[in-house]
């Protein structure tokens, strides 16, 4: 029996090592491409090891006129502001819903649940945000539409509050004269660090990775985030290739070269890859919370 278990363990290791390699390999191609000389790319295409090493792409990126530094700043600003406000708004809604005293609790719960089941759709949302609120070409377009709060996080947080925080604790705080805001900030929040961190992390990744809001609402290049910039570069190249006669290199030359594009993608994904070892514990916990009903 022991021997059989070992066989299974070895089979498990082999298949999972194979799987992890598949997960990592595209990134190696990407990084290698970003470090390859542009002429070598024309000659041999992308490869897993730079056929001719060059850091020109990174020099271009970090030069002032590439717009990357600015896009990076926008991405960071949006991610930080978006994540903080979304966690606060979610907690402010979830906490009263976890309290029995709150009036109209069931009605509100239903209204939240309903948003998870029925969507107005993309076009009506677009019209609300452009005609009614006029977020077009403002930083708010990257923060507010769609991402600021979702019913799912509210339900998860509410369940956490109502299952892990003893009502006696709230009662005794009330006896001591603490207001609801104080209770939430000073007592509930510190006790709920795991769920706040998980929701915050999920929102943080969502904001960093977003390209859709940028694509729909932003046309001013000064407001491009890294993802939107990358998307725009890819589109411009497709467009030029399709619409210009062969040999018109002038227009193509004004766009970042292949290795520079790959380098932008590398620095776009790098923060996530570098931070991942530190937050993966919460991330993996978040997957399980998300799957099993909040």
């Amino acid at each position, binding site marked *: *029996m022991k021997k*059989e278990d070992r066989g*299974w*363990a070895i*089979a*498990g*290791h082999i298949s*999972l090592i194979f*799987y*992890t390699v598949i*997960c990592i390999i*595209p*990134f190696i*191609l*990407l990084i290698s491409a970003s470090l390859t000389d542009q002429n070598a790319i*024309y000659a*041999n*295409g*992308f*490869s897993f090891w730079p056929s001719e090493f060059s850091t020109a792409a990174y020099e271009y990126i970090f030069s002032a006129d590439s717009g990357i530094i600015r896009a990076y700043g926008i991405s960071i600003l949006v991610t930080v502001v978006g994540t903080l406000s979304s966690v606060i708004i*979610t907690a402010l*809604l979830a*906490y*009263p819903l976890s*309290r029995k005293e*709150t*009036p109209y609790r069931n009605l509100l719960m239903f209204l939240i649940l309903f948003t998870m*089941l*029925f*969507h*107005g*759709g*993309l*076009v*009506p949302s*677009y*019209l*609300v945000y452009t005609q*009614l609120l006029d977020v077009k070409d403002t930083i708010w377009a990257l923060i507010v539409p769609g991402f600021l*709060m979702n019913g799912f996080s509210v339900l998860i947080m509410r369940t956490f509050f109502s299952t892990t925080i003893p009502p006696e604790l709230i009662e005794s705080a009330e006896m001591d004269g603490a207001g*609801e*805001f104080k209770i*939430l900030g000073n007592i509930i929040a510190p006790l709920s660090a795991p769920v706040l961190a998980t929701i915050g992390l999920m929102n943080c*990744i969502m904001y960093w*990775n977003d*390209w859709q809001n940028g694509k*729909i609402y932003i046309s001013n290049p000064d407001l491009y985030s890294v993802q939107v910039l*990358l998307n725009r570069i*890819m589109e411009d190249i497709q467009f030029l290739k399709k619409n210009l006669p062969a040999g018109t290199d002038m227009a193509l030359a004004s766009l970042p070269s*292949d290795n520079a*594009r*790959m380098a932008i*993608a590398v620095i776009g994904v790098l923060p*996530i890859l570098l931070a991942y070892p530190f937050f*993966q514990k919460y991330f*993996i916990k978040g*997957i399980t919370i998300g*799957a*099993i*009903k909040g």
Partner: protein
Amino acid sequence: MEQAVQAATPVEQAPRKKKKKINFKKTWPLLLMMVPGLLYLIINNYLPMFGIFIAFKNINFAKGIFNSDWVGFRNFEYLFTTADAYIITRNTILYNLVFIVLGTILALACAILLNEIKNKFAMKFYQAVIAMPNLISWVIISYLVFAFLGAETGYVNNTILPALGSDDWIMFYMEPKYWPYILTTINFWKSVGFSSIIYFASLMGIDHSYYEAARLDGASRWKQITRITIPIMTPVIVMLFIMNLGRIFYSDFGLFYQATNNSGALFSTTATIDTYVFNGLLGVGDIGMSTAAGLYQSVVGFILIIVANYITRLMSRENAIF
């Protein structure tokens, strides 16, 4: 405030008026807290629900949205008389079916393998790496895909095909026939590890004494998997399966839009309802028709979710969303 109390109480429970009376003096901070969140729900979720009336209008931006002419179901008629409606519905459903069925099997197999790893460090390492692709944005993934499939510089055309003895390039972004396989592969690359962790979490919860008893009876490891693990997991599998079926009308928009570079040549195998609506909004298609497609998705999607939830509820109450 007082008026609101008066208005609310009789509706709530007329006979026990005194007891049920809402104490606003005490609860107003709780209500105040909810204002930003509820306001957001109104703007972000409820107002767009009323916006579906656009589907019944012939949008003319010169006249403005509210003044455009009502056309009844004409947008829907147009949508369903074109081949588009059939193509986008078929693609959305077929891709989802493949993703759900094959994806479940792969994720489950992966979870069972993870469960065989006794070395804690190795297990955590595998878990972390295979969940990682799910963190990557679709834009970055479109670059990764491009690095492999790009016509002039891609790895496949420059290294793999020559190694196989073929000198011809394949213009991947022009050839619809390859994309069902490509998109399926990308989807699994991104999501299988992630969903295997969900299954793995419930595998870990299985009582070890079952396995010990089976071992004493001389059951092989394979027998233990097929006779203990799978049957115990069945409710979870079925439940996630039904939940996913409920979402079969919604596609993973980023996959179909970004990974394909939104190449028009690939429409027949890569267009889904979501990409159709998006392209309509951004001016490539007709906005009235795309709103109609969006409403079609919302309504059918809603019905499917309700049905899926109803079935889940019949099986296990606690797993249903409502």
